């Protein structure tokens, strides 16, 4: 054990002094997370709508309830104002993204069957204008539809009191009552591509896993380098178990992986504001299993006595392919590949991380971690069987 820890400590010391390695293993993933997370974060921010409800007629309460509906919150943020001038000035000043005035005679005109309209003041931001107008369009469409129904039914007057669930036609929605006008999803499920997390969360998980996977090859290379440079020969000649030496070399790479994972997690949490979901124990377990799996995989392919360049190429290709197939480079690729992503190591690591991030139930998370653990176990077992071929001194 002493030999193992001494070797691990000195291996870790060598890694920490290798600036280019640290830049590659920590700097690069942080950069990629930042670039992809920022650039692809297409979550729509709610438009601030300055709203003046001048109308006090029968439809006023329903209109008010419509704008207060929590379902609209992701898309618009109404700011109730006292006059049209205030609405206009807020939009001009940029303090509101959009302005809406419901004129005083709106209810009266609608009930009389006349054409009625709201006065709108679009802002400078086209996206925000689109969000606000989409909300208004929904209201108007449903209101028109309801009016058409009423016209067909021959109703002479519309009483809000008899249609408490219809905010388009009157009051009475009340607290907790469902709105007749349902607001659709404006973003067309953009966050569904990222599995209900933001883009930066998505890529933070993806690149954490991808770069942890590379550590497997670092561990295998550490043994191959020592063999090539002759230090392994000296290590075999010291009066300690060579298994301890090899375990120490692998542990040194493992310590680097833990350092890398901690650096990425901390930096993304405190600098990028990534919400990892809070369960750092489970996140640590996922990272651990990923690292172990990658080392198993790396030693397994190294055992086939290929040249170092070939082994590195195979490993890099495998990690890159798995990252791509699991959507690590382009979200949503997995579904295009007919579910082939589920056969990658990255899929289970990423899925479990994202489940923690979006607050999925514990059973889901544990189930995904179990699959990851099984994969890691199989790879380690294969590596353990083949390891003597990597470490045996052949003269």
């Amino acid at each position: 054990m002493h030999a193992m820890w001494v070797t691990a400590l000195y291996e870790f010391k060598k890694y920490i002094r290798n600036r280019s390695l640290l830049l590659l293993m920590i700097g690069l993933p942080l950069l990629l997370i930042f670039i992809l997370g920022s650039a692809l974060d297409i979550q729509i921010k709610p438009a601030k709508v300055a709203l003046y409800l001048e109308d006090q007629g029968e439809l006023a309460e329903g209109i008010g309830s419509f704008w207060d509906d929590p379902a609209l919150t992701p898309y618009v943020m109404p700011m109730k104002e006292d006059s049209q001038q205030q609405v206009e000035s807020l939009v001009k000043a940029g303090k509101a993204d959009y302005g809406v005035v419901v004129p005083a005679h709106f209810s009266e005109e609608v009930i009389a069957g006349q054409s009625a309209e709201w006065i709108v003041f679009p802002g400078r931001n086209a996206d925000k204008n689109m969000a606000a107008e989409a909300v208004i369009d929904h209201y108007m469409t449903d209101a028109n539809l309801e009016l058409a129904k009423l016209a067909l039914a021959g109703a002479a007057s519309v009483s809000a009191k008899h249609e408490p669930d219809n905010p388009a036609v009157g009051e009475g929605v009340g607290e907790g009552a469902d709105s007749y006008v349902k607001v659709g999803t404006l973003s067309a499920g953009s966050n569904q591509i990222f599995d209900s997390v933001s883009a930066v969360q998505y890529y933070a998980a993806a690149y954490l896993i991808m770069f942890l996977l590379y550590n497997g090859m670092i561990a295998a290379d550490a043994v191959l380098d020592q063999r090539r440079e002759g230090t392994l020969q000296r290590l075999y000649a010291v009066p300690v178990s060579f298994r301890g030496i090899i375990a120490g070399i692998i542990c040194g790479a493992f310590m680097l992986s833990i350092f890398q994972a901690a650096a990425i997690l901390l930096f993304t949490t405190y600098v990028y504001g990534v919400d990892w979901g809070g369960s750092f124990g489970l996140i640590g377990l996922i990272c651990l299993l990923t690292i172990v799996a990658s080392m198993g995989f790396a030693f397994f392919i190294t055992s086939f006595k290929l040249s170092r360049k070939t082994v590195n190429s195979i490993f890099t290709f495998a990690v890159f392919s798995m990252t791509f197939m699991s959507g690590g480079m382009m979200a949503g690729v997995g579904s295009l590949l007919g579910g082939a992503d589920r056969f990658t190591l990255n899929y289970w690591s990423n899925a479990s991380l994202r489940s923690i991030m979006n607050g999925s139930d514990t059973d889901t998370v544990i189930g995904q971690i179990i699959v990851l653990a099984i994969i890691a176990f199989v790879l380690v077992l294969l590596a353990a069987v083949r390891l003597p071929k990597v470490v045996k001194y052949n003269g």
Partner: protein
Amino acid sequence: MSLVAFKQVVKKYDTAITVNHLTLDIEEGEIFGLLGPNGAGKSTSIHMLSGLLAPDRGEITVDGYSIVKQPLEVKKRIGLVPQELAIYDALSARENMTFFAKLYGLRGKLLRERVDEALQFVGLYDRANDKPKTFSGGMKRRLNIACAIMHRPKLIIMDEPTVGIDPQSRNHILESVRELNRLGSTVIYVSHYMEEVEAICSKVGIMDKGQLLAVGTKEQLIKQSGQEERLLFEIAQSGEPSIAEMSAHPGVIRLDASEDGHTLEATVKQSNTILQDLLFILQKHELPLRKLTRVEPNLESLFLQMTGRMLRDE
């Protein structure tokens, strides 16, 4: 009991026998030179001795401990100086040595003292905190040695320790080997440089094709081989007149002359006894001597005689 004993040791790689029933004893206190052409089995023998490879048959013991049955006990008594520079560029000289010293079981104050001692011994104390990548080749070789001697091993195995270094560093290393031996370590010195082996080794073994061809002191080997001395006479004019008389001398085994007759090469049994006679013959024929060279049998000629002059590719 010998410190190191090889008994009928065999090592095969696939069907090729690399070490073929090697039997060799090395006594405590010797500096044992191991010579052989490429592919002779020297490195394989050394690797089996230091526990890197397991023999297929036979027994190797160090200080009575078997390398197969008690490898850790053997390794405690050995310091290996590999042919490759087995040092880490990313660690300073002191860190390199501290790392290996810890693996040899040294701790605390004793570890620090031994590291300092070894650094002083190899002349790297002032560069202790520098990294090997800033060292010359000779300095790296010295660090390579230092990493093997901190635990004061009974047996030091040095595999080509002076490859590719300048003469000053080589001289320093050879002196260090003598000093280590004086301090009580037995040394196995593997080298292709005959003059090094002749200069420092008390006993020499010559290997080829996995077998030990000869072992003994240099004088014993030369005597066993029956090699003769040669005397080269360079004379100012043709030595034709003296050839017959010199050839007839009982101490001369053979006399060869160059084409122009200006150089006469006499192969003799013992030059001490007949040199004067031959000089007298030249004087008698009024042949002025320009230069006289005495060529004694040496390890290189013995080596070439035993292993042949053909190139060996490993």
